[in-house]
C-alpha cells in the first residue's frame, strides 16, 4: 500500500502531489442564499469558508477496500464545488483568463529586460527554480483543470452532496428537500451519467449574531428525525460580535488571490467557530465520505467479480462484445449509463484510486480498457489509459508500462479531434511531470513539443517549457534550448505578446552569442531589434540592428529590409533621444509630479484609469491603420473611419459600456452599421474620413483621427469602410479572429492590445500652438535675421511658467523683449550713448533654458510674440528643435504641464568663404599685416561688404589704404577678393580677472568698408545677438588649438545687395550677413617679437679700413610673463650649414651601395642630389662679415614691454649681406610648462655696403 512514504516515493514527487490535489473526491454544495449571506460577512463565500479545512495532512483513517487487509490513510482532500460550478468550464473564458495572466506576467518580467542577456555559463549554474518563470505553474494548473467534469471519467463526479440551510430560512426542513429537487442540479446527475442516489449530508448553519442557538437545536432534532441522525449537523458561525478577530495564520489567505479586501478574512469567526468548522469537515470526511466510498468499492467489486471475473465471464464478455461490433460508432451515445457495468468498473477504479488502493484500481482499469477498446469508445479508452499510466507511476512498478499508457492515452485523445484537445493537454502535462520525476528531461521536452497545439499562445508557453527541459537535461542540450526558445518567441509574437517574445529571444541570445551560423544570428538579432523598436525602446534596439548589418550572405530583398529597418530605428532613436535630452532640464522630475498628482487628483478617477492613456477633449487622437489588399485587383475604398465608443464620464462607465457593447453586437448581427448609431456617436466625438484605392497586393497606411468632445472613456473599437461605395464593412480591433466579411480585403490593426486603444478623456486643457515668422527654408551661411516666435493658446485657461530650450544655440538665440519693437537692422547699430546698448546675454541661460518672464500668461487666442535671432553658422542641412514647457494655470487638472515641440529644418547654403592671414609687419614692431581673402561662393547673391571688426580690446584694426581704392563696392557671385589691413596690438598688461571677460567681445575695433553712401553707421559687435553668436562661434571653431594669447577673431558684416536675385520669398525680411573667423594666429608662435633696425645702405671706403655697422635690435615681450632673451650671433649661417652637413654625408654613405650592381641611372640621381647639396648658396657668403661686439647678449624683458639691444658687425668688402645668422633663445620665467622656452632663427635683414669713391 502506498502509505509507506519514502524519499523516492512517487507520491511525494511533483506529479504525486499534483494528483493528490486534483484527483480527490468532489463534494457538491447546495445552499440557500441566506447561508451565503451569513458567510459573506467574513468576506468569504461558503465554499471558500470550508476549503481550508477540507485538506487533511494527517487524517489517519483506517480503510479496508476489496482485500481484507486494512490500511491507514494519512493525506486526504475534499474538493468542494457549488452545484452550478460542476460543469465543463467555459473554454473561451478560461482562455481569456490565461491570456490575461500571461500578459500580466509579461509586463512584470519585462522590467529587467534592458540589461545584457545572461551568459550561458551563468544560466547553467542557476538553480532550476530561479530560471523557470513562476507563472508557468499557474498556467499548467489551469490547463489541467480545463477538461474537468467530463462524463467519461468518474473522479470528478461528486461523491457526496452537502446541503446547507440557514436557521433564518423559513421551514428549514422543506428547504432541504427543495434544494435537491430543483432542476439546478448538474447535468452529470440529470443525464444519467452518474447515480442520482448520492450521499447527502445536511448542514444547518446558524449565525450567532441572529440570537441564541436554541431554535437551531430544535431544528436539528427535527432534522435528525427526518433525515437520520448521522447525516445532520449544526454549524454555528459568526460568534464574534465585533468582527475584530485577527487570525495569526489566516487559513484563507492562500486561497483568496485578489488583494483588494475591505475587511480581514474570517473576522467574525472566533476560535470556537474555527474548531467547529474543523470538526465538521473532519467528521464529514472520516465518518461519512471515506466509509461511503469503502462500502461502494466493496459492493462494486462484488458485482464486478460476479459478472466479469473468472474465465467463463471473460469468454462470455468477449462473445458479447464481438456481437456488438457491427453497431456504428457509439462512443457518445448514452450506452454507458451509470448502471452499465463499464461505468461501474470505472467508478470502482476511480474510488480505489482516490483511496489509494492502486492495485485494485489498476486491475479494474485494465479490465475496462480492453472493453472500451473493443467498443471503440476512444475517449473513454484514453481516459482509462491515462489513469493506468498514473497508477503505474504511483505504484512505481513498470516505468515502461506507465509511459506506454500515457503515450497511448495522449495519442488517442489527439486522434478523436478537437474534443480531446484539452484532455490531451492534461494528459501530456501529467506525462511530462512523470518524465521529469525520472530525470528524463529530453523526453519531457519532446512531450511538451507535442502538447503545443493550434493555439499560438498555448504552444508558445509549451515550447518555452520544452526549452527549459532541454536546458535542465544532463548534459544540457543548449542547441535545442535555443531553438525552442526561438520557436516559442515566434508564437508569442503571433499573439501579440511582444514582451514575452523579447524575453525568450534574449534568452536564446545567450546560446547564439557570437555564433558563426549567420542566418541564425541575423534572425535573432533582427527580430529582437524590431520588437524593441516596436515598444519604442530604440536605444536598446540599435545595438541589435547593428549586428545584422553585415549580411552579405542574405538575399537582396532581405538586405534591403535589414538596412531599411536599421535606418528607421536609428532615426527614431536619435529624434526621440534628442527631444528627451532637450526636455530633461525643464520637466520636473517624476516623483515630484506623482506627489503633485496625488494631491490634486480628482477623487473620481479610479486606479484603473490611471494606467490608461490620457487624451484631452477637443484634441484629436491619430490612429495609423494599415490596409492590405490580398487580391490582385484594385479595390476602391471610401469613407474609412474609426468606430469608437465614448462613455460620458468615469462614474457611468459600467452601464455605458454595457449599452454600447450591446449596440455593437446588434451591429454585428445585422452585419451593417446603422446610420442612427453614427449620428448618436457624432454628438460626442468627431471622426475623420479617408478615401483611397488599394492596388493589387498593396499596403497602405492610413491615418485616421477621432476627436472627443466630452469627458469620459474613449475606446477605439474598430474601423469601418465602404467598399466601392456600396458595401459597408468593418473590422473590430479587439477580436483576434479574422472575420470573413463581405469585403474580402483582410484588415488587421497593426497591434491591438486592448489597453492601447482605450483613452481617458479629460476636460479640455490649454494647448499652445507655436509658429515662427520670417523663417525661410533656405538661407545663406552667415545670414543673421530676427525671427518672431508666436505662441497662441486657443483655450480660456491661461498657461504659465513657460520655459524654452533650443537645440543649437549656435544657430538660434533667444532675443530680449525690447528689440521686438525696434527696427532691424537698425537695432544692431552702434549707439552713441553707451547706456542704451543692449547688453549681451552673458548669463548661462542662453545656453540652457530660457525662462519667459514670470508674469507671462497666454490665453484666449491672443498671440504672444517673442523675438528670436537666427544666424546660419555653417552650411548644411540643419535641424532646429525648439521645445517649450508650460504649466497649466488651473492646477486641479490631471495634466500639470505640457510641452510644445517645434521642429524646423533649415537648409544653409554656402556664401562667403573667408580666410585671414596675419604676418608681422617687417618695419614696425607690434604691428601686423592682415590679408583677408573672401570668395563669393553663391550663384546669385551679391554682397555689399559693410564692416570688418576685430574682437577684443587688445587689437585695433585699421585700413592701409582708403576704401575706394582697394575694394569694389559689391562682391559679385563667384568673385574673389583679397585686401590688406593693418592690425595693431594695443594690449596692456591685464589682471587675471579681466581674462575671463576676454571670451565676450566687450570691445572691438571696426573698419568701415564699402561705399560711403550706403553705410554711415557701424554695427555693434559687442551687443546681443552678435556677441552671443560670437561666443558660440568661438567655442565651435576652437578645435584642437589651445587658447593662445595672440590670436585674433574677426567679424565681417555684409549686407545683401538690393539687386540680388533672392531664392526665398519675393520680399524677404531685412537681414544681414555676419561671418565670424576666430582664433586667427600670427604666423610666428614666439611670444617675443623683435625688429632689427639700422642703415640699409652704407658707402664705405674699404681701402681705408673695414666697415663697422651699428645696428639696433628692439625686443618686445608680448606674453604675460617676463622673459629672458639670449641673442646668439653666429659667423656661419647655422641652419643651412647643418643642413648641408647632413645632406653632404649621404652621398658618401651611399657609395658602398652604388658600387655593387645598381647602375648608372641611380648614380645620376645621386649626382643630382650631390649637385643640390654641394652648392649651398650660403657657403660662398660665409665670413664676408663678422659680428663684432659680444657674440651673445642676454637681456630680461618685462611683460608687455620693450628692450633695445645694440649690435655691431664688421664688413670687409662691399656687397649685400643677409644679417640673419643669429638666433634668439627665449625663456619665459616663472612658468612651469615646457613650451615656455624656444629658439627663433634670425629674420632676414639685408644690408648693402658700397665702395665709396
Amino acid at each position, binding site marked *: 500500500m502506498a502509505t509507506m512514504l519514502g524519499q523516492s516515493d512517487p507520491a511525494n514527487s511533483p506529479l504525486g502531489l499534483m494528483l493528490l490535489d486534483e484527483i480527490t473526491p468532489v463534494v457538491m454544495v447546495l445552499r440557500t442564499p441566506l447561508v451565503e449571506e451569513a458567510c459573506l460577512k467574513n468576506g468569504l463565500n461558503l465554499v471558500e469558508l470550508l476549503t481550508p479545512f477540507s485538506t487533511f495532512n494527517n487524517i489517519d483513517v483506517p480503510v479496508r477496500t476489496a482485500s481484507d487487509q486494512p490500511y491507514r490513510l494519512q493525506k486526504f482532500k475534499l474538493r468542494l464545488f457549488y452545484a452550478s460550478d460542476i460543469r465543463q468550464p467555459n473554454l473561451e473564458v478560461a482562455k481569456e483568463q490565461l491570456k490575461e495572466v500571461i500578459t500580466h506576467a509579461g509586463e512584470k518580467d519585462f522590467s529587467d529586460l534592458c540589461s545584457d542577456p545572461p551568459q550561458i555559463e551563468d544560466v547553467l549554474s542557476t538553480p532550476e527554480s530561479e530560471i523557470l518563470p513562476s507563472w508557468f505553474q499557474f498556467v499548467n494548473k489551469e490547463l489541467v483543470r480545463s477538461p474537468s467534469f467530463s462524463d467519461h471519467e468518474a473522479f470528478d463526479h461528486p461523491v457526496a452532496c452537502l446541503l446547507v440551510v440557514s436557521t433564518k430560512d423559513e421551514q428549514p426542513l422543506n428547504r432541504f428537500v427543495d434544494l435537491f429537487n430543483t432542476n439546478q442540479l448538474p447535468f452529470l446527475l440529470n443525464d444519467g451519467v452518474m447515480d442520482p442516489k448520492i450521499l447527502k449530508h445536511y448542514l444547518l448553519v446558524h449565525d450567532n449574531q441572529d440570537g441564541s442557538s436554541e431554535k437551531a437545536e430544535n431544528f436539528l432534532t427535527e432534522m435528525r428525525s427526518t433525515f437520520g441522525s448521522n447525516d445532520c449537523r449544526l454549524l454555528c458561525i459568526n460568534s464574534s460580535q465585533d468582527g475584530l478577530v485577527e487570525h495569526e495564520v489566516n487559513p484563507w489567505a492562500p486561497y483568496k488571490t485578489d488583494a483588494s479586501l475591505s475587511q480581514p478574512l474570517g473576522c467574525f469567526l472566533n476560535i470556537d467557530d474555527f474548531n467547529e468548522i474543523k470538526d465538521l469537515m473532519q467528521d464529514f470526511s472520516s465518518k461519512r465520505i471515506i466509509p461511503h466510498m469503502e462500502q461502494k468499492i466493496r459492493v462494486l467489486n462484488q458485482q464486478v467479480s460476479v459478472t466479469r471475473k473468472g474465465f467463463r465471464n471473460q469468454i462470455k464478455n468477449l462473445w458479447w462484445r464481438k456481437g456488438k461490433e457491427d453497431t456504428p460508432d457509439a462512443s457518445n451515445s448514452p450506452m454507458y449509463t451509470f448502471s452499465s457495468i463499464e461505468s461501474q468498473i470505472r467508478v470502482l477504479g476511480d474510488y480505489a484510486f482516490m483511496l489509494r488502493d492502486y492495485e485494485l484500481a489498476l486491475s479494474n482499469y485494465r479490465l475496462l480498457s480492453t472493453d472500451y477498446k473493443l467498443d471503440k469508445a476512444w475517449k473513454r479508452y484514453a481516459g482509462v489509459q491515462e489513469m493506468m499510466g498514473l497508477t503505474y507511476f504511483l505504484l512505481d512498478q513498470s516505468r515502461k508500462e506507465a509511459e506506454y499508457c500515457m503515450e497511448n492515452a495522449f495519442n488517442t485523445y489527439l486522434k478523436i479531434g478537437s474534443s480531446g484537445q484539452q484532455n490531451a493537454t492534461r494528459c501530456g502535462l501529467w506525462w511530462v511531470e512523470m518524465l521529469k520525476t525520472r530525470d528524463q528531461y529530453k523526453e519531457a521536452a519532446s512531450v511538451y513539443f507535442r502538447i503545443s497545439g493550434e493555439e499560438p499562445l498555448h504552444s508558445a508557453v509549451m515550447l518555452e517549457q520544452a526549452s527549459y527541459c*532541454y536546458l535542465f537535461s544532463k548534459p544540457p*542540450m*543548449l*542547441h*535545442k534550448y*535555443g*531553438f*525552442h526558445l*526561438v520557436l516559442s518567441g515566434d508564437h508569442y509574437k503571433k499573439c501579440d505578446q511582444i514582451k514575452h517574445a523579447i524575453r525568450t529571444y534574449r534568452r536564446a541570445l545567450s546560446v547564439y552569442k557570437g*555564433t*558563426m*551560423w*549567420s*542566418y*541564425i544570428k*541575423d*534572425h535573432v538579432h533582427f527580430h529582437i531589434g524590431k520588437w524593441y523598436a516596436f515598444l519604442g525602446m530604440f536605444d536598446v534596439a540599435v545595438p541589435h540592428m547593428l549586428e545584422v548589418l553585415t549580411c552579405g550572405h542574405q*538575399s537582396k*530583398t*532581405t538586405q534591403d529590409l535589414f538596412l531599411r529597418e536599421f535606418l528607421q530605428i536609428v532615426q527614431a532613436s536619435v529624434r526621440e533621444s534628442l527631444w528627451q535630452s532637450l526636455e530633461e532640464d525643464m520637466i520636473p522630475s517624476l516623483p515630484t509630479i506623482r506627489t503633485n498628482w496625488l494631491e490634486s487628483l480628482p477623487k473620481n478617477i479610479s486606479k484603473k484609469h490611471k494606467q490608461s492613456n490620457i487624451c484631452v477633449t477637443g484634441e484629436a487622437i491619430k490612429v495609423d491603420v494599415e490596409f492590405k489588399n490580398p487580391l490582385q485587383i484594385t479595390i476602391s475604398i471610401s469613407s474609412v473611419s474609426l468606430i469608437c465608443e465614448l462613455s460620458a464620464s468615469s462614474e457611468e462607465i459600467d452601464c455605458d459600456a454595457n449599452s454600447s457593447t450591446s449596440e455593437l453586437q446588434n451591429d454585428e448581427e445585422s452585419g451593417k452599421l446603422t446610420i442612427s448609431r453614427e449620428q448618436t456617436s457624432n454628438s460626442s466625438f468627431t471622426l475623420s474620413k479617408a478615401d483611397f484605392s488599394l492596388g493589387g497586393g498593396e499596403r497602405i497606411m492610413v491615418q485616421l483621427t477621432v476627436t472627443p468632445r466630452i469627458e469620459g472613456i474613449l475606446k477605439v473599437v474598430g474601423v469601418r469602410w465602404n467598399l466601392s461605395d456600396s458595401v459597408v464593412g468593418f473590422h473590430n480591433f479587439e477580436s483576434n479572429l479574422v472575420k470573413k466579411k463581405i469585403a474580402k480585403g483582410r484588415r488587421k490593426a497593426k497591434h491591438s492590445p486592448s489597453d492601447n486603444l482605450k483613452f481617458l478623456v479629460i476636460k479640455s486643457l490649454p494647448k499652445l500652438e507655436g509658429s515662427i515668422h520670417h523663417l525661410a527654408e533656405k538661407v545663406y551661411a552667415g545670414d543673421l535675421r530676427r525671427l518672431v516666435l508666436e505662441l497662441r493658446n486657443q483655450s480660456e485657461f491661461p498657461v504659465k511658467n513657460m520655459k524654452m530650450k533650443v537645440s543649437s544655440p549656435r544657430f538660434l538665440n533667444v532675443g530680449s523683449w525690447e528689440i521686438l519693437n525696434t527696427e532691424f537692422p537698425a537695432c544692431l547699430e552702434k549707439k552713441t550713448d553707451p547706456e542704451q546698448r543692449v547688453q549681451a546675454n552673458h548669463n548661462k541661460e542662453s545656453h540652457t533654458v530660457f525662462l519667459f518672464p514670470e508674469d507671462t500668461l497666454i490665453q484666449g487666442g491672443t498671440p504672444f510674440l517673442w523675438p528670436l535671432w537666427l544666424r546660419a553658422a555653417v552650411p548644411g542641412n540643419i535641424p532646429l528643435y525648439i521645445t517649450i514647457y508650460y504649466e497649466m494655470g488651473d492646477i486641479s487638472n490631471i495634466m500639470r504641464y505640457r510641452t510644445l515641440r517645434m521642429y524646423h529644418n533649415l537648409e544653409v547654403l554656402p556664401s562667403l568663404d573667408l580666410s585671414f592671414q596675419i604676418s608681422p609687419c617687417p618695419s614696425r614692431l607690434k604691428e601686423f599685416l592682415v590679408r583677408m581673402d573672401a570668395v563669393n561662393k553663391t550663384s546669385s547673391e551679391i554682397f555689399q561688404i559693410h564692416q570688418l571688426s576685430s574682437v577684443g580690446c587688445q587689437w585695433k584694426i585699421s585700413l592701409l589704404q582708403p576704401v575706394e581704392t582697394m575694394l569694389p563696392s559689391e562682391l559679385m557671385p563667384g568673385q574673389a577678393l583679397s585686401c590688406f589691413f593693418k592690425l595693431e596690438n594695443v594690449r596692456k598688461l591685464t589682471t587675471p580677472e579681466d581674462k575671463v571677460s576676454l571670451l565676450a567681445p566687450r570691445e572691438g575695433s571696426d573698419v568701415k568698408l564699402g561705399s560711403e553712401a550706403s553705410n554711415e553707421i557701424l554695427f555693434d559687435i559687442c551687443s546681443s545677438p552678435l556677441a552671443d553668436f560670437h561666443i558660440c562661434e568661438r567655442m565651435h571653431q576652437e578645435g584642437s588649438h589651445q587658447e593662445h594669447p595672440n590670436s585674433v577673431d574677426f567679424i565681417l558684416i555684409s549686407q545683401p545687395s538690393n539687386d540680388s536675385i533672392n531664392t526665398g520669398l519675393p520680399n524677404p525680411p531685412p537681414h544681414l550677413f555676419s561671418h565670424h573667423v576666430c582664433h586667427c594666429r600670427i604666423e610666428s608662435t614666439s611670444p617675443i617679437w623683435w625688429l632689427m633696425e639700422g642703415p640699409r645702405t652704407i658707402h664705405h671706403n674699404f681701402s681705408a679700413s673695414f666697415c663697422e655697422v651699428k645696428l639696433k635690435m628692439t625686443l618686445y615681450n608680448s606674453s604675460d610673463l617676463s622673459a629672458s632673451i639670449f641673442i646668439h650671433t653666429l659667423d656661419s649661417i647655422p641652419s643651412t650649414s647643418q643642413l648641408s652637413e647632413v645632406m653632404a654625408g649621404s652621398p658618401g654613405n651611399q657609395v658602398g651601395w652604388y658600387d655593387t650592381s645598381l647602375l648608372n641611372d641611380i648614380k645620376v640621381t645621386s649626382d643630382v642630389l650631390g649637385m643640390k647639396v654641394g652648392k649651398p648658396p650660403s657657403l660662398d657668403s660665409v665670413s664676408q662679415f663678422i659680428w663684432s661686439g659680444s657674440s651673445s647678449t642676454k637681456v630680461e624683458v618685462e611683460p608687455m614691454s620693450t628692450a633695445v639691444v645694440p649690435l655691431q658687425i664688421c664688413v670687409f668688402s662691399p656687397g649685400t649681406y643677409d644679417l640673419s645668422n643669429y638666433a634668439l633663445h627665449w625663456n619665459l620665467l616663472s612658468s612651469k610648462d615646457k613650451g615656455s622656452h624656444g629658439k627663433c632663427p634670425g629674420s632676414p635683414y639685408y644690408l648693402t655696403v658700397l665702395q665709396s669713391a
Partner: protein
Amino acid sequence: MASTACFIIVSRNDIPIYEAEVGSAVKKEDAAQQHQFILHAALDVVQDLAWTTSAMFLKAIDRFNDLVVSVYVTAGHTRLMLLHDSRNEDGIKSFFQEVHELYIKVLLNPLYLPGSRITSSHFDTKVRALARKYL
C-alpha cells in the same frame, strides 16, 4: 531529388564551413534561417549519438515537422549534416560517403586550413552534382 534539402558541413568547433541548399523546391524567404535553426539544434543529438556507434553514418537522427536530419561524422569529428524530406537512406549514405572523399581531398590541399570555410567552387559544383545524383 528531394524537394527540400539543405547540406551543411560543420567543423569540430561547431562552425559551419560549407553550406548549400540542394533542394529542388522553390526557395522561400525564411527557409535558410529555418534550416540553419533545425540543423543547429540537431548538433545536440549528434553529440549524444556519435559516441554510441562506430559507424560514421548515423542515419536520421532528428526531425522537425516533416524535415529529417541525417548526419555523417568523420573521424576528425567534422559533421556532414543533411536536412531533407525524402526517405532514401541508401542514397543519402552514398552521398555522404562521396562528399567525405571530396572533403578529404580538400583537406589534402596544403593551402586549406582545417576548420576554415570551404570556398572552393570546384568542391561546390561536385557536391551539387552528387546531390543531384543521389538525393
